[in-house]
């Protein structure tokens, strides 16, 4: 296969990953890296570099839309970014000292956990909503526009959310992923922030968190421009198309198929890292 065909096929695969990511809110780094490693035989470190760049691309692209809607909460986002960025720096430093096999196993496990987290039902919390003193001190409580007027919300569980965010940051730096699934758990489950606000704010944070690993990836030679450009452009185009076909797509079915795929890919990544290939 020549470089030209290789790049075109990668761009097509990245495009599909971008479409799926936009449709079911999962994807980007977590799916591109295994596709590059298992499907194209790319070394996992180059794959992680390209995936991380594409994560920043989609996050910035989507942030443009979300910020305009006024749904994301900048205070929550920036406050939690102090945890995710420091975690990401630690994770990226760890990544540069691990070999491809270990990274492959850890990546596979992260895929399996992500699949499990995605299987959870997304329900708004029904617990009685009272203000949390720490959240009030930090002025994290907010409101967001809905079809039936502005809805205000209180933020809870700040220490727990902060710790999970730090772990999400470590995973982001270690594996070159946005770790959006983990961020959503912290905000949605632990901090009990409304789902729409969680999604928009998590998207803002993903790009900033990924940026904290980029310097380390760049210096360690993980960012191969010749691989990054088809991946980043493909994912961007895919995310753009995905957002537009969203109202017509069978999202629920796609999600089920996709989660099954993620589980199979996760197992394969673990086996590959352990030296078992089939």
């Amino acid at each position: 296969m020549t470089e030209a065909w290789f790049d075109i096929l990668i761009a097509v695969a990245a495009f599909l990953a971008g479409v799926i990511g936009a449709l079911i809110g999962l994807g980007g780094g977590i799916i591109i890296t295994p596709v590059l490693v298992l499907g194209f035989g790319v070394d996992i470190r180059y794959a992680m570099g390209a995936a991380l760049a594409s994560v920043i691309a989609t996050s910035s692209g989507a942030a443009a839309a979300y910020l305009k809607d006024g749904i994301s909460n900048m205070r929550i986002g920036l406050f939690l970014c102090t945890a995710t960025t420091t975690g990401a720096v630690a994770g990226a430093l760890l990544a540069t000292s691990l070999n491809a096999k270990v990274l492959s196993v850890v990546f596979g496990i992260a895929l399996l956990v992500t699949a499990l987290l995605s299987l959870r039902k997304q329900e708004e919390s029904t617990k009685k909503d009272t203000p949390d003193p720490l959240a009030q001190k930090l002025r994290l409580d907010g409101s967001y526009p809905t079809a039936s007027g502005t809805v205000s919300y209180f933020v809870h569980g700040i220490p727990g959310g902060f710790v999970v965010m730090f772990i999400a940051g470590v995973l982001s730096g270690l594996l070159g992923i946005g770790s959006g699934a983990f961020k959503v758990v912290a905000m949605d489950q632990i901090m009990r922030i409304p789902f729409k606000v969680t999604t928009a704010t998590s998207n803002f944070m993903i790009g900033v968190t990924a940026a904290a690993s980029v310097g380390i990836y760049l210096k360690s030679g993980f960012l191969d421009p010749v691989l990054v450009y088809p991946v980043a452009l493909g994912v961007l185009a895919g995310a753009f198309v995905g957002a537009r076909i969203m109202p017509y797509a069978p999202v629920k079915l796609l999600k089920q198929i996709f989660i099954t795929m993620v589980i199979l890919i996760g197992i394969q990544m673990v086996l590959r890292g352990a030296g078992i290939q089939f």
Partner: protein
Amino acid sequence: MNDSRLQSILSKLMFYGVLLAAAVMLVGGAIFLFSHGGDRPGDHVFKGEPHDLRDPIAVAQSAIRGSNPAWIQLGVLILLANPFVRVAMSAIGFTIGKDPLYAVVSLFVFAVLVYSFFL
């Protein structure tokens, strides 16, 4: 400056930043394919990128000399600069909005991002 005005400025900035990065990568990638399209792809084995593609200043210098991968890398760097700008703008926005706590929080995040480039 209030929150919604800050968000609307940031949103425009993000949009044009991504557009610019994509355009530079697209042009750089197309030129690359014209000259190297027939080569064998080389990402199967990890060698690490050459040193002139490993830090922002060296990338800019190589791009000026006309190196094609450096041009693509420049597009990649513009893309990666987006979150930096986003956080810096937040720090400015919170400062103007007389919100010292979140100005400091934004500055801390910005400092971590910059620090990561010097590790």
